[in-house]
C-alpha cells in the first residue's frame, strides 16, 4: 500500500473513531473517571464532615474518631491524580464533570494545589488527635486548600 493511501485510511479511521475516543480514552472510561472523582470527593467531604461537626460543636469531640476521619481524609486526598483525571473528561465533554480544562493545561499548578490538600490533611491527622482547639485551628487551613483548588480548577454547578 502506498504511504499516502495509508495515511488517508488512518484519517478515515480516526474520523469514525472520534465520537468514541478522545485522547486515547473511550467515552465510557472518561465518564467512569469523572464518577470516580466525584466519589473520592464524597469521601473527602464525608470525613471532613465528621471533623467539621466537632469543630462547630454539633457533635462531641472524640479524639479517636477525629483521628480516624483525618486519616481517611489523608488517604482519599493522596490518591494519584494520574488515574482519576483522565484527559478529555472536563466539564462539557463528560456529563456530571465540573473539572475545568485548566487541570490539563496547567498540570503543575493543579498538582501543587492537590499536594497542598495532602499537606493540610496530614497536619489535620496530628491536630485531630491533639484536642478540639487544635482541630478547630486546622479547619481554616484545610478549607483554604479546598477553596484554592476549586476556585481555579472547578467549574460552576449550573
Amino acid at each position: 500500500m502506498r504511504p499516502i493511501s495509508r495515511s488517508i485510511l488512518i484519517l478515515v479511521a480516526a474520523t469514525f473513531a472520534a465520537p468514541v475516543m478522545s485522547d486515547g480514552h473511550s467515552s465510557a472510561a472518561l465518564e467512569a473517571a469523572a464518577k470516580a472523582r466525584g466519589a473520592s470527593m464524597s469521601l473527602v467531604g464525608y470525613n471532613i464532615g465528621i471533623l467539621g461537626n466537632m469543630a462547630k460543636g454539633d457533635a462531641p469531640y472524640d479524639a479517636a474518631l477525629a483521628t480516624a476521619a483525618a486519616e481517611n481524609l489523608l488517604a482519599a486526598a493522596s490518591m494519584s491524580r494520574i488515574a482519576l483525571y483522565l484527559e478529555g473528561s472536563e466539564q462539557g465533554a463528560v456529563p456530571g464533570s465540573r473539572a475545568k480544562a485548566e487541570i490539563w493545561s496547567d498540570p503543575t499548578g493543579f498538582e501543587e494545589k492537590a499536594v497542598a490538600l495532602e499537606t493540610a490533611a496530614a497536619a489535620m491527622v496530628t491536630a485531630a488527635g491533639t484536642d478540639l482547639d487544635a482541630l478547630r485551628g486546622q479547619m481554616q487551613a484545610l478549607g483554604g486548600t479546598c477553596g484554592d483548588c476549586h476556585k481555579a480548577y472547578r467549574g460552576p454547578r449550573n
Partner: protein
Amino acid sequence: MRRIIIALIVVGVAFGLYLTQPRSLPDGFASDSPADTEAGALAFAAAGCASCHTSPEDDADGPPVLAGGQAFASDFGTFYAPNISSDSTTGIGGWSLDEFARAVTLGVSPKGQHYYPAFPYAAYQHMTEQDVANLFAYMQTLPDDATPSRAHDVGFPFNIRRGLGLWKVAFIPDDYVMAADTETLERGRYLVEGLGHCAECHTPRNALGGLDRNRWMAGAPNPSGKGTIPNITPEALDWSEGDLVEYFNSGFTPEYDSAGGKMAEVVENLSRLPEEDRQAIAAYVIGLQAIP
C-alpha cells in the same frame, strides 16, 4: 415664548449640572485620627479590595500586588479594575488621604470625575473615617506596580461619566437597608452592607443597574454570565449561625462542599477577620428579611 423656552433650558441644564456634580468630602475627613496599618489590613480584607484589584494572573502568596486588569463584563460594557498599587504614577501612591477618601466613599476621582459603580462605593460610603484612614495607610505599605490601568470598554451614552451623577442620586440612598437593634447586628450590617459589599452580587439590579432594595440579598444572575448568585435570605438558606461562621472561616458548607469561584476569594478574606466579625456577619444574614 422663545424666551421662556430658553430660560427653561438654562434652568434645566443648570439643574442637571447641579445634580450630576461630583460631591466633595465634608471638611476634615479622617484627619484627626492616627492611622493603624494592622487595622487597615483587616479593613482591606473585609472590603475585599484584592479580590478585584490584583492582576488576573496573580496567584502568589505574600502581599497582594494591586496592579489591576481583571475584566468585569456588564450590560453596559466591560470594566477593567484599575491599578491601585502604591506606584505614584500608575497607582495611588501620589494620592492624599482626602483624595483617597473621596474616591472610596463618594466614587469621585482626584480629578473630580465620577467612577463607574463597578467600584462598590455605594457600599463603601458607610466606611468609617477611621477605617478609611487605616485602609489608606495599609495600602501604602503594599508593593508598587508600573502596569498602567486599562481603559474601560463602555459605549455611548454610558461613556459620559458626568451622567453617573444622576445615577448616584437615583440609586445610592445613604441609609442602611436593615434596621439593626443590637451591637452585633450593627457590626454585621457595617461588614455586610458596607465593607463587604455583599449586595453587589447577591441583590438583583434594575434595568439601569441600580440595586433593587426590595429584593435585598434574594439572589441575582451572575454578572459573569454563568449561573446565578444564590438567594441568602432565610427563605432560601436554612443554615444555622454555626454553619455560617464555619463557612466564613473554612469555606465548608453544611454538606462539606467548599466555596468556589468568587466566593472562595470572599471566604479567603473573611477567614482573616476576628471570629466576632464572622459571628456578626452570620447574625446579619440570619436577620435578613425572608424573600422567596
